[in-house]
């Protein structure tokens, strides 16, 4: 039972990170109609920046802060230099072009930081566990991730729903030409939105870094999951991304935790060890396939263009 609660919390935490990635992806896709395969590269950059700055400043938080800034700038620069020419083209061109960027970033990282990867360690204060329920202890840092991301989610919601910029973003999503005609600088708006998406991705990468690793190509596997999230949630919908991210995070984590045992119990031991992890990965994709067949606009489709 305790294990179940812990795994649920882990699932939510994974969901939070997925949300950060998916939110940026769905904003960019919904507003600029751009499919960005290099989004995982920004996730990777965030982690690398954080590890580097944390080592240089000897402070975890300073490292995160600087890395966030750096990723924001990198994202905006990328938009101006390489992404702009892609607007308006068909999705295949986006996929191909941003795939080229993905290859580029992998090599760039290898050039700058070497092939071995980095580590980002938590400050000692974050290493303890906290009692969330009577008798249930959960790592503080993971709780921090959940709370931090929730805060970001609320800020994002406030930004998109309550500010002038947010209104422009929503308006731009439904009618690009109109907003341009109103004299709003669409180019700047797009750069800012892309930068925001990049920062969110980078944040996910750096939050994740102390839990696992910082290495080349780290964005590639989670990027797929993020795309699955926005398909399930509905392209262009932040609310959808949030719900779908939690859903996917929990299903994936619970699946990995319990499916092998279930299979071992009911089928055979070896089947559980080998088929378990594979099947739990498959759960998510099966869910996506089901959504695509029965409700292709997603669970919370954004307003129609």
């Amino acid at each position: 039972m305790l294990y179940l609660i812990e795994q649920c919390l882990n699932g939510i935490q994974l969901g939070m990170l997925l949300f950060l990635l998916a939110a940026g992806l769905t904003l960019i896709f919904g507003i600029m109609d751009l499919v960005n395969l290099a989004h995982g590269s920004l996730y990777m950059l965030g982690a690398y920046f954080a590890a580097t700055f944390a080592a240089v400043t000897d402070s975890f938080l300073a490292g995160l802060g600087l890395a966030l800034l750096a990723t924001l700038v990198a994202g905006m620069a990328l938009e101006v230099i390489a992404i702009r020419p892609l607007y308006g083209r068909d999705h295949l061109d986006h996929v191909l072009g941003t795939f080229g960027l993905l290859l580029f970033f992998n090599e760039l990282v290898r050039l700058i930081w070497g092939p071995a990867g980095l580590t980002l360690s938590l400050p000692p204060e974050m290493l303890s566990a906290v009692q969330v329920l009577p008798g249930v202890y959960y790592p503080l840092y993971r709780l921090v991730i959940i709370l931090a991301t929730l805060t970001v989610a609320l800020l994002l919601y406030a930004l998109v729903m309550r500010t002038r910029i947010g209104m422009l973003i929503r308006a731009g999503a439904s009618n690009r030409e109109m907003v341009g005609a109103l004299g709003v600088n669409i180019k700047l708006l797009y750069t800012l939105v892309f930068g925001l998406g990049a920062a969110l991705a980078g944040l996910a990468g750096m939050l994740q870094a102390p839990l696992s690793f910082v290495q080349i190509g780290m964005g590639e596997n989670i990027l797929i999951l993020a795309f699955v999230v926005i398909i399930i949630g509905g392209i262009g919908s932040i609310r959808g991304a949030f719900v779908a991210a939690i859903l996917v995070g929990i299903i994936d984590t619970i699946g990995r935790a319990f499916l092998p045992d279930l299979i071992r119990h009911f089928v055979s031991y070896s089947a559980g060890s080998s088929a378990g992890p594979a099947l739990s990965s498959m759960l998510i994709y099966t869910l996506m396939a089901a959504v695509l067949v029965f409700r292709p606009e997603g669970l919370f489709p954004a307003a129609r263009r």
Partner: protein
Amino acid sequence: MTARLSPRNAFVAVVIAILALVPVYAEATGNTFMVSLFTRIVILAIAAVSLNLIMGFGGMVSFGHAVYLGIGGYAVGILAKEGINSGLLQWPLAVAASALFALAVGALSLRTRGVYFIMITLAFAQMVYYVAIGLDRYGGDDGMTIYKRSQFGGLIDLSNKMTFYYLCLALLLASVYVVWRLVHSRFGMVIQGARSNERRMRAIGFPTYRYKLLSFVFAGMLCGLAGALLANHTDFISPALMHWTRSGDLIVMAVLGGMGTVFGPVIGAVALLVLEEVLSGITEYWQIILGPLFLLVVLFARGGIDGLLAGVRRG
């Protein structure tokens, strides 16, 4: 169907000539590595040609095509491990398994379009990738060595590098010819029409879904064959071969060479892998050029190398 001596046709002829003469050159200079390199090029060219059937001509961008290299390869590898070394059993099974998987994936994926299609093909490929990682008996994440190449009685000895190379080359040329005929047949017209304007195709009376599905299966089968060849070439098979970024490599080959023709992907495979060899000899970080180069090709030379030669992008 007359052949004209245009720059593009001349180039194609030159490339074929080069491919045919590689082993001769290698013998003369004692450079056996070249044969190995070009065997790999030829095999991946078959995979790229199969992808282009559905991508360039059918407009179905599959980001999970490398999965068939894996399915074909694992068919050979698994059978070899279980003691079945006959190519006459392994290769048809590799192709059949690929056909079945393509049928299943296609049946579901072809109900979507655009970026959804791309994502769902990618997702299915990742599923197989994870399944392969879970196959402890067959190497799991580390992969599995294949100790004996496919046996064909006394007909042909695949462990002979030269023989194997010419077999692969023959299969490549045969594949190109078959796909060429396919693309210009009635069937091919339906596929191309569906790429151009599917709404119109249905309005004039074509049940496009079944044709697209069949083309998807053909492409999978051909790539499965390439997978069987690849497993024999490397004497090794691992899940990494099926990662979605490997599918990306195949797409790069097709786009770089030219999506508009059947032979384009062959040019792309040769160009990409030769470039890889040459540049990696110069600097370790050559790939840093590849990314932006590819972006530039997508932006300004959409028809790839073949498009540049022909001046106009048409099938």
